Protein backbone atom coordinates (compact mmCIF):
# COMPACT_ATOMS: atom_id res chain seq x y z
CA UNK A 1 0.00 0.00 0.00
CA UNK A 2 1.28 3.40 -0.90
CA UNK A 3 0.10 6.78 0.33
CA UNK A 4 -3.55 7.39 -0.61
CA UNK A 5 -4.19 9.52 -3.68
CA UNK A 6 -6.97 10.44 -6.05
CA UNK A 7 -6.59 8.30 -9.13
CA UNK A 8 -7.34 9.57 -12.62
CA UNK A 9 -6.89 7.69 -15.86
CA UNK A 10 -7.57 10.16 -18.68
CA UNK A 11 -8.41 8.71 -22.10
CA UNK A 12 -6.74 11.46 -24.11
CA UNK A 13 -3.51 13.41 -23.92
CA UNK A 14 -5.52 16.65 -23.80
CA UNK A 15 -7.38 15.39 -20.71
CA UNK A 16 -4.12 14.34 -19.08
CA UNK A 17 -2.60 17.77 -19.65
CA UNK A 18 -5.75 19.44 -18.28
CA UNK A 19 -5.53 17.35 -15.10
CA UNK A 20 -1.87 18.24 -14.64
CA UNK A 21 -2.66 21.90 -15.19
CA UNK A 22 -5.61 21.88 -12.77
CA UNK A 23 -3.77 20.10 -9.97
CA UNK A 24 -0.34 21.67 -10.38
CA UNK A 25 2.32 20.37 -8.02
CA UNK A 26 -0.21 18.13 -6.26
CA UNK A 27 -0.34 15.88 -9.32
CA UNK A 28 2.12 13.30 -10.56
CA UNK A 29 1.95 11.46 -13.90
CA UNK A 30 2.30 7.66 -13.84
CA UNK A 31 3.82 5.80 -16.78
CA UNK A 32 5.27 2.31 -16.17
CA UNK A 33 5.57 2.90 -12.44
CA UNK A 34 8.92 1.18 -12.03
CA UNK A 35 10.51 4.25 -10.43
CA UNK A 36 7.43 6.08 -9.16
CA UNK A 37 5.69 3.19 -7.38
CA UNK A 38 8.79 2.40 -5.25
CA UNK A 39 8.95 6.11 -4.38
CA UNK A 40 5.27 5.99 -3.40
CA UNK A 41 5.84 2.84 -1.34
CA UNK A 42 8.77 4.48 0.45
CA UNK A 43 6.70 7.68 0.98
CA UNK A 44 9.35 9.67 -0.88
CA UNK A 45 6.62 10.84 -3.29
CA UNK A 46 3.22 11.86 -1.90
CA UNK A 47 1.09 13.15 -4.74
CA UNK A 48 -2.53 14.06 -3.96
CA UNK A 49 -3.54 13.13 -7.50
CA UNK A 50 -2.04 10.39 -9.64
CA UNK A 51 -2.61 10.85 -13.38
CA UNK A 52 -2.25 7.43 -14.98
CA UNK A 53 -1.07 7.81 -18.59
CA UNK A 54 -1.49 4.15 -19.53
CA UNK A 55 -4.69 4.63 -21.49
CA UNK A 56 -2.99 7.07 -23.88
CA UNK A 57 -2.48 4.81 -26.87
CA UNK A 58 -1.33 7.84 -28.84
CA UNK A 59 1.91 7.75 -26.80
CA UNK A 60 2.58 4.11 -27.64
CA UNK A 61 3.36 4.54 -31.34
CA UNK A 62 6.76 4.01 -32.95
CA UNK A 63 7.21 5.49 -36.40
CA UNK A 64 9.94 6.14 -38.90
CA UNK A 65 10.26 9.75 -40.06
CA UNK A 66 12.93 9.89 -42.75
CA UNK A 67 16.29 9.25 -41.09
CA UNK A 68 14.79 9.32 -37.63
CA UNK A 69 12.73 7.11 -35.40
CA UNK A 70 10.06 8.70 -33.22
CA UNK A 71 9.44 6.54 -30.19
CA UNK A 72 6.31 7.28 -28.14
CA UNK A 73 6.83 8.04 -24.46
CA UNK A 74 4.84 5.00 -23.35
CA UNK A 75 6.82 2.47 -25.39
CA UNK A 76 8.05 -0.12 -22.92
CA UNK A 77 11.66 -1.23 -22.51
CA UNK A 78 10.64 -4.75 -23.46
CA UNK A 79 9.37 -3.65 -26.88
CA UNK A 80 12.63 -1.80 -27.51
CA UNK A 81 14.59 -4.86 -26.38
CA UNK A 82 12.67 -7.15 -28.75
CA UNK A 83 13.28 -4.73 -31.61
CA UNK A 84 10.40 -5.79 -33.84
CA UNK A 85 9.27 -3.87 -36.92
CA UNK A 86 10.88 -0.48 -37.49
CA UNK A 87 12.94 -0.96 -34.32
CA UNK A 88 14.99 -3.61 -36.09
CA UNK A 89 16.88 -0.74 -37.73
CA UNK A 90 18.19 0.36 -34.31
CA UNK A 91 20.24 -2.43 -32.71
CA UNK A 92 21.77 0.07 -30.27
CA UNK A 93 18.34 0.53 -28.70
CA UNK A 94 17.90 -3.23 -28.33
CA UNK A 95 21.29 -3.52 -26.69
CA UNK A 96 20.60 -0.69 -24.24
CA UNK A 97 17.11 -1.90 -23.36
CA UNK A 98 18.39 -5.36 -22.48
CA UNK A 99 20.64 -3.81 -19.80
CA UNK A 100 17.83 -2.08 -17.93
CA UNK A 101 17.02 -3.38 -14.43
CA UNK A 102 15.47 -6.83 -14.54
CA UNK A 103 12.88 -8.40 -16.80
CA UNK A 104 10.02 -7.17 -14.60
CA UNK A 105 11.18 -3.56 -14.88
CA UNK A 106 11.45 -4.00 -18.64
CA UNK A 107 7.92 -5.42 -18.93
CA UNK A 108 6.31 -2.27 -17.54
CA UNK A 109 8.89 0.52 -17.57
CA UNK A 110 8.75 3.07 -20.39
CA UNK A 111 11.33 5.14 -22.25
CA UNK A 112 9.44 8.36 -21.50
CA UNK A 113 9.28 7.52 -17.81
CA UNK A 114 12.99 6.82 -17.70
CA UNK A 115 13.83 10.12 -19.42
CA UNK A 116 11.50 12.08 -17.12
CA UNK A 117 12.91 10.39 -14.01
CA UNK A 118 16.44 11.27 -15.20
CA UNK A 119 18.39 8.96 -12.95
CA UNK A 120 22.08 9.82 -13.50
CA UNK A 121 22.94 6.12 -13.92
CA UNK A 122 20.05 5.14 -16.20
CA UNK A 123 20.62 3.84 -19.73
CA UNK A 124 18.11 5.84 -21.82
CA UNK A 125 19.35 9.32 -20.89
CA UNK A 126 22.91 8.34 -21.88
CA UNK A 127 21.77 6.70 -25.12
CA UNK A 128 19.61 9.67 -26.12
CA UNK A 129 22.50 12.01 -25.28
CA UNK A 130 24.98 9.99 -27.37
CA UNK A 131 22.62 9.98 -30.34
CA UNK A 132 21.83 13.70 -30.05
CA UNK A 133 18.21 12.72 -29.67
CA UNK A 134 15.41 15.22 -29.15
CA UNK A 135 12.84 14.94 -26.37
CA UNK A 136 9.36 15.84 -27.60
CA UNK A 137 7.23 17.58 -25.01
CA UNK A 138 3.68 18.90 -24.83
CA UNK A 139 2.36 21.28 -22.21
CA UNK A 140 0.21 24.30 -21.45
CA UNK A 141 2.34 26.47 -23.76
CA UNK A 142 2.22 23.99 -26.64
CA UNK A 143 4.83 21.66 -28.07
CA UNK A 144 8.57 21.84 -27.49
CA UNK A 145 11.40 19.78 -29.00
CA UNK A 146 14.23 19.76 -26.47
CA UNK A 147 17.68 18.49 -27.54
CA UNK A 148 19.06 15.92 -25.12
CA UNK A 149 21.93 18.28 -24.29
CA UNK A 150 19.44 20.76 -22.84
CA UNK A 151 16.93 18.30 -21.41
CA UNK A 152 18.95 16.89 -18.50
CA UNK A 153 19.56 19.58 -15.91
CA UNK A 154 20.65 17.69 -12.79
CA UNK A 155 20.21 14.42 -10.94
CA UNK A 156 16.49 13.61 -11.29
CA UNK A 157 15.93 17.12 -12.70
CA UNK A 158 14.97 17.90 -16.29
CA UNK A 159 13.98 20.91 -18.37
CA UNK A 160 10.32 19.86 -18.17
CA UNK A 161 8.16 22.76 -16.97
CA UNK A 162 5.14 22.36 -14.68
CA UNK A 163 2.27 20.71 -16.53
CA UNK A 164 4.45 19.38 -19.37
CA UNK A 165 4.57 15.75 -20.42
CA UNK A 166 7.08 13.90 -22.57
CA UNK A 167 5.18 12.60 -25.58
CA UNK A 168 8.11 10.92 -27.32
CA UNK A 169 11.73 11.03 -28.32
CA UNK A 170 13.22 11.49 -31.78
CA UNK A 171 16.34 9.46 -32.44
CA UNK A 172 18.45 9.30 -35.60
CA UNK A 173 18.59 5.91 -37.28
CA UNK A 174 22.25 5.02 -37.81
CA UNK A 175 23.05 4.49 -41.49
CA UNK A 176 25.34 1.89 -43.05
CA UNK A 177 28.88 2.57 -41.89
CA UNK A 178 27.68 3.61 -38.45
CA UNK A 179 27.46 1.53 -35.31
CA UNK A 180 26.75 1.90 -31.62
CA UNK A 181 27.54 0.01 -28.44
CA UNK A 182 26.80 0.21 -24.73
CA UNK A 183 29.17 -1.06 -22.07
CA UNK A 184 28.35 -0.88 -18.40
CA UNK A 185 29.60 -2.14 -15.10
CA UNK A 186 27.55 -2.94 -12.03
CA UNK A 187 28.36 -5.03 -8.99
CA UNK A 188 25.24 -7.20 -9.35
CA UNK A 189 23.17 -8.01 -12.42
CA UNK A 190 20.16 -5.72 -12.56
CA UNK A 191 21.67 -2.94 -10.45
CA UNK A 192 21.99 0.54 -11.86
CA UNK A 193 25.33 0.83 -13.60
CA UNK A 194 28.16 2.34 -11.58
CA UNK A 195 29.33 3.73 -14.92
CA UNK A 196 27.97 3.07 -18.41
CA UNK A 197 29.49 4.23 -21.70
CA UNK A 198 27.52 4.64 -24.92
CA UNK A 199 29.55 5.03 -28.12
CA UNK A 200 28.36 5.81 -31.64
CA UNK A 201 30.94 5.64 -34.43
CA UNK A 202 30.35 6.71 -38.04
CA UNK A 203 32.98 5.68 -40.56
CA UNK A 204 33.80 7.49 -43.79
CA UNK A 205 34.04 5.40 -47.01
CA UNK A 206 37.85 5.34 -46.60
CA UNK A 207 37.49 3.68 -43.19
CA UNK A 208 38.45 6.71 -41.09
CA UNK A 209 36.17 8.02 -38.37
CA UNK A 210 33.80 10.63 -39.76
CA UNK A 211 32.26 11.25 -36.37
CA UNK A 212 32.38 9.61 -32.97
CA UNK A 213 30.10 10.35 -30.06
CA UNK A 214 30.44 9.07 -26.52
CA UNK A 215 28.29 9.68 -23.48
CA UNK A 216 28.61 8.39 -19.95
CA UNK A 217 26.03 7.51 -17.32
CA UNK A 218 26.97 7.34 -13.66
CA UNK A 219 29.88 9.74 -14.05
CA UNK A 220 28.06 12.91 -13.01
CA UNK A 221 24.62 14.25 -12.17
CA UNK A 222 23.58 14.15 -15.84
CA UNK A 223 24.70 12.07 -18.82
CA UNK A 224 27.79 13.74 -20.23
CA UNK A 225 29.48 13.70 -23.61
CA UNK A 226 33.22 13.36 -23.95
CA UNK A 227 34.16 16.08 -26.49
CA UNK A 228 37.93 15.50 -26.15
CA UNK A 229 37.57 11.79 -26.80
CA UNK A 230 35.30 12.48 -29.76
CA UNK A 231 37.70 15.07 -31.24
CA UNK A 232 40.67 12.74 -30.86
CA UNK A 233 39.01 10.24 -33.18
CA UNK A 234 37.80 12.49 -35.99
CA UNK A 235 39.57 11.68 -39.25
CA UNK A 236 41.62 8.88 -37.69
CA UNK A 237 41.59 5.17 -38.38
CA UNK A 238 39.86 3.34 -35.54
CA UNK A 239 42.80 1.08 -34.74
CA UNK A 240 43.09 -0.24 -31.18
CA UNK A 241 45.84 2.22 -30.19
CA UNK A 242 43.91 5.26 -31.43
CA UNK A 243 40.73 4.11 -29.69
CA UNK A 244 42.61 3.50 -26.44
CA UNK A 245 44.29 6.87 -26.66
CA UNK A 246 40.99 8.65 -27.25
CA UNK A 247 39.33 6.72 -24.44
CA UNK A 248 42.11 7.70 -22.02
CA UNK A 249 40.85 11.28 -22.29
CA UNK A 250 37.72 10.15 -20.47
CA UNK A 251 39.87 10.35 -17.34
CA UNK A 252 39.37 14.13 -17.47
CA UNK A 253 35.86 13.76 -16.03
CA UNK A 254 35.33 14.74 -12.41
CA UNK A 255 32.76 12.37 -10.96
CA UNK A 256 31.62 12.37 -7.34
CA UNK A 257 32.47 9.44 -5.13
CA UNK A 258 29.67 7.84 -3.14
CA UNK A 259 28.84 4.66 -1.25
CA UNK A 260 28.92 2.62 -4.45
CA UNK A 261 32.25 3.74 -5.89
CA UNK A 262 34.98 6.32 -5.32
CA UNK A 263 35.57 9.13 -7.78
CA UNK A 264 38.87 7.52 -8.83
CA UNK A 265 37.19 4.20 -9.52
CA UNK A 266 34.48 5.87 -11.62
CA UNK A 267 37.21 7.66 -13.60
CA UNK A 268 38.91 4.32 -14.16
CA UNK A 269 35.64 2.70 -15.28
CA UNK A 270 34.90 5.65 -17.60
CA UNK A 271 38.20 5.10 -19.42
CA UNK A 272 37.92 1.32 -19.63
CA UNK A 273 34.26 1.22 -20.63
CA UNK A 274 34.69 4.03 -23.17
CA UNK A 275 37.50 2.06 -24.81
CA UNK A 276 35.39 -1.09 -24.96
CA UNK A 277 32.30 0.71 -26.25
CA UNK A 278 34.29 2.54 -28.92
CA UNK A 279 36.00 -0.64 -30.10
CA UNK A 280 32.73 -2.48 -30.42
CA UNK A 281 30.91 0.47 -32.04
CA UNK A 282 33.72 0.79 -34.60
CA UNK A 283 33.58 -2.95 -35.34
CA UNK A 284 29.80 -2.78 -35.81
CA UNK A 285 30.20 0.26 -38.06
CA UNK A 286 32.84 -1.51 -40.20
CA UNK A 287 30.64 -4.59 -40.50
CA UNK A 288 27.54 -2.61 -41.45
CA UNK A 289 29.54 -0.54 -43.91
CA UNK A 290 30.89 -3.66 -45.60
CA UNK A 291 27.50 -5.36 -45.81
Amino acid sequence: MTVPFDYRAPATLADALALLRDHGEEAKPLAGGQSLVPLLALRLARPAVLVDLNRLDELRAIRREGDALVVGALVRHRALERGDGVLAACPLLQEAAALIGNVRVRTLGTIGGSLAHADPAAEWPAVVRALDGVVLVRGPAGDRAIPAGDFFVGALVTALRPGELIVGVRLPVLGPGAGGAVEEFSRRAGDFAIVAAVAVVELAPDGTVARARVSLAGAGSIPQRLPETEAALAGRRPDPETLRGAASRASAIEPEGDAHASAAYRRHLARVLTARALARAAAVAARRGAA
Partner: protein
Amino acid sequence: MTELTVAFTLNGRPCEVRTAAHRTLLEILRDDLGAMEVKEGCGEGVCGTCTVLLDGEPVSSCLVLAPRAAGCRVTTVRGLGDGDRLHPLQEAFVTQGGVQCGFCIPGMIVTAYAFLRDHPAASREEIRRAIAGNLCRCTGYTKIIDAIASAAPGRGGGAPGAAGG
Protein backbone atom coordinates in the same frame (compact mmCIF):
# COMPACT_ATOMS: atom_id res chain seq x y z
CA MET B 1 -8.60 8.65 -2.14
CA THR B 2 -10.18 6.82 -5.05
CA GLU B 3 -12.02 3.53 -4.72
CA LEU B 4 -12.74 1.48 -7.79
CA THR B 5 -13.75 -1.96 -8.97
CA VAL B 6 -11.02 -3.90 -10.69
CA ALA B 7 -11.89 -6.99 -12.73
CA PHE B 8 -9.32 -9.41 -14.12
CA THR B 9 -8.76 -13.13 -14.46
CA LEU B 10 -6.66 -14.93 -11.86
CA ASN B 11 -5.27 -18.21 -13.18
CA GLY B 12 -8.12 -18.35 -15.67
CA ARG B 13 -10.85 -17.58 -13.14
CA PRO B 14 -12.67 -14.23 -13.50
CA CYS B 15 -12.58 -12.14 -10.34
CA GLU B 16 -13.61 -8.68 -9.26
CA VAL B 17 -12.30 -6.65 -6.35
CA ARG B 18 -13.44 -3.39 -4.81
CA THR B 19 -10.27 -1.60 -3.75
CA ALA B 20 -8.55 1.69 -3.11
CA ALA B 21 -6.46 2.71 -6.12
CA HIS B 22 -3.31 2.99 -4.03
CA ARG B 23 -3.23 -0.68 -3.12
CA THR B 24 -0.95 -2.98 -5.09
CA LEU B 25 -1.77 -6.09 -7.08
CA LEU B 26 0.29 -8.03 -4.54
CA GLU B 27 -2.00 -6.92 -1.70
CA ILE B 28 -5.13 -7.70 -3.68
CA LEU B 29 -3.87 -11.16 -4.57
CA ARG B 30 -2.94 -12.07 -1.01
CA ASP B 31 -5.38 -10.14 1.16
CA ASP B 32 -8.52 -10.07 -0.98
CA LEU B 33 -8.23 -13.18 -3.13
CA GLY B 34 -6.27 -15.49 -0.84
CA ALA B 35 -3.57 -16.19 -3.40
CA MET B 36 -1.00 -16.81 -0.67
CA GLU B 37 1.36 -18.50 -3.10
CA VAL B 38 2.44 -14.99 -4.08
CA LYS B 39 5.05 -13.90 -1.53
CA GLU B 40 6.02 -10.41 -0.44
CA GLY B 41 9.76 -9.85 -0.17
CA CYS B 42 11.17 -6.35 -0.39
CA GLY B 43 8.05 -4.50 -1.53
CA GLU B 44 10.21 -2.29 -3.76
CA GLY B 45 10.51 -4.35 -6.93
CA VAL B 46 14.05 -5.55 -6.26
CA CYS B 47 13.83 -9.14 -5.03
CA GLY B 48 11.49 -10.81 -7.53
CA THR B 49 9.69 -12.85 -4.87
CA CYS B 50 6.25 -11.42 -5.78
CA THR B 51 6.65 -12.04 -9.53
CA VAL B 52 3.44 -12.90 -11.40
CA LEU B 53 2.59 -12.85 -15.08
CA LEU B 54 0.50 -9.92 -16.28
CA ASP B 55 -0.89 -10.82 -19.69
CA GLY B 56 1.87 -13.42 -19.90
CA GLU B 57 4.81 -11.18 -19.00
CA PRO B 58 6.63 -11.13 -15.65
CA VAL B 59 6.01 -8.14 -13.36
CA SER B 60 6.68 -7.29 -9.72
CA SER B 61 3.15 -7.43 -8.31
CA CYS B 62 4.30 -5.05 -5.54
CA LEU B 63 4.90 -2.36 -8.20
CA VAL B 64 1.57 -2.78 -9.99
CA LEU B 65 -1.10 -0.43 -8.68
CA ALA B 66 -4.55 -1.98 -8.51
CA PRO B 67 -6.08 -0.20 -11.53
CA ARG B 68 -3.30 -1.48 -13.81
CA ALA B 69 -4.57 -5.06 -13.45
CA ALA B 70 -8.00 -4.21 -14.86
CA GLY B 71 -8.86 -6.40 -17.83
CA CYS B 72 -5.58 -8.34 -17.57
CA ARG B 73 -4.76 -12.02 -17.27
CA VAL B 74 -2.92 -12.55 -13.99
CA THR B 75 -1.04 -15.83 -13.58
CA THR B 76 0.62 -16.97 -10.36
CA VAL B 77 2.76 -20.05 -9.82
CA ARG B 78 -0.45 -21.91 -8.98
CA GLY B 79 -1.76 -21.27 -12.47
CA LEU B 80 1.11 -23.00 -14.25
CA GLY B 81 0.18 -26.58 -13.36
CA ASP B 82 -3.05 -28.36 -14.16
CA GLY B 83 -5.09 -28.90 -11.03
CA ASP B 84 -3.10 -31.24 -8.80
CA ARG B 85 -0.62 -32.03 -11.55
CA LEU B 86 2.55 -30.00 -11.36
CA HIS B 87 3.95 -28.23 -14.39
CA PRO B 88 7.15 -29.94 -15.63
CA LEU B 89 9.13 -26.92 -14.43
CA GLN B 90 7.68 -27.28 -10.93
CA GLU B 91 8.37 -31.00 -11.08
CA ALA B 92 11.98 -30.22 -12.00
CA PHE B 93 12.44 -28.06 -8.90
CA VAL B 94 11.32 -31.04 -6.80
CA THR B 95 13.47 -33.66 -8.51
CA GLN B 96 16.56 -31.44 -8.74
CA GLY B 97 16.31 -30.26 -5.13
CA GLY B 98 15.93 -26.65 -6.23
CA VAL B 99 13.92 -25.65 -3.15
CA GLN B 100 15.40 -24.86 0.25
CA CYS B 101 13.20 -22.57 2.40
CA GLY B 102 10.95 -22.05 -0.61
CA PHE B 103 10.11 -18.39 -0.14
CA CYS B 104 11.67 -17.19 -3.42
CA ILE B 105 10.46 -20.18 -5.42
CA PRO B 106 7.03 -18.96 -6.62
CA GLY B 107 8.66 -15.89 -8.19
CA MET B 108 11.62 -17.91 -9.43
CA ILE B 109 9.38 -20.43 -11.20
CA VAL B 110 7.12 -17.81 -12.75
CA THR B 111 10.17 -15.95 -14.09
CA ALA B 112 11.73 -19.15 -15.42
CA TYR B 113 8.42 -20.21 -16.99
CA ALA B 114 8.14 -17.02 -19.06
CA PHE B 115 11.82 -17.23 -20.00
CA LEU B 116 11.70 -20.86 -21.18
CA ARG B 117 8.53 -20.15 -23.12
CA ASP B 118 10.45 -17.53 -25.11
CA HIS B 119 13.84 -19.32 -25.07
CA PRO B 120 13.17 -23.07 -25.09
CA ALA B 121 16.79 -23.99 -25.85
CA ALA B 122 18.40 -21.56 -23.40
CA SER B 123 21.94 -22.20 -22.21
CA ARG B 124 22.86 -22.29 -18.52
CA GLU B 125 24.47 -18.88 -18.92
CA GLU B 126 21.28 -17.47 -20.42
CA ILE B 127 19.26 -19.02 -17.60
CA ARG B 128 21.57 -17.41 -15.05
CA ARG B 129 20.97 -14.02 -16.63
CA ALA B 130 17.23 -14.60 -16.89
CA ILE B 131 16.82 -15.17 -13.14
CA ALA B 132 19.32 -12.48 -12.12
CA GLY B 133 16.44 -10.36 -10.82
CA ASN B 134 15.16 -13.10 -8.50
CA LEU B 135 17.03 -13.30 -5.22
CA CYS B 136 17.44 -16.49 -3.17
CA ARG B 137 18.97 -15.90 0.25
CA CYS B 138 19.20 -19.55 1.36
CA THR B 139 21.81 -21.03 -0.80
CA GLY B 140 23.63 -20.85 -4.08
CA TYR B 141 21.68 -20.84 -7.28
CA THR B 142 23.22 -24.01 -8.71
CA LYS B 143 20.33 -26.36 -8.06
CA ILE B 144 17.80 -23.75 -9.12
CA ILE B 145 19.63 -23.42 -12.44
CA ASP B 146 19.87 -27.23 -12.66
CA ALA B 147 16.10 -27.43 -12.26
CA ILE B 148 15.36 -24.79 -14.91
CA ALA B 149 17.89 -26.24 -17.37
CA SER B 150 16.48 -29.74 -16.95
CA ALA B 151 12.98 -28.45 -17.76
CA ALA B 152 13.99 -26.50 -20.88
CA PRO B 153 12.08 -28.13 -23.74
CA GLY B 154 14.85 -27.44 -26.24
CA ARG B 155 17.29 -29.23 -23.91
CA GLY B 156 15.12 -32.33 -23.58
CA GLY B 157 13.05 -31.14 -20.60
CA GLY B 158 9.26 -31.16 -20.38
CA ALA B 159 7.57 -28.65 -22.63
CA PRO B 160 5.87 -25.80 -20.79
CA GLY B 161 2.16 -26.15 -21.46
CA ALA B 162 -0.23 -23.25 -21.76
CA ALA B 163 -0.52 -21.45 -18.44
CA GLY B 164 -3.94 -20.99 -16.95
CA GLY B 165 -5.25 -17.48 -17.16
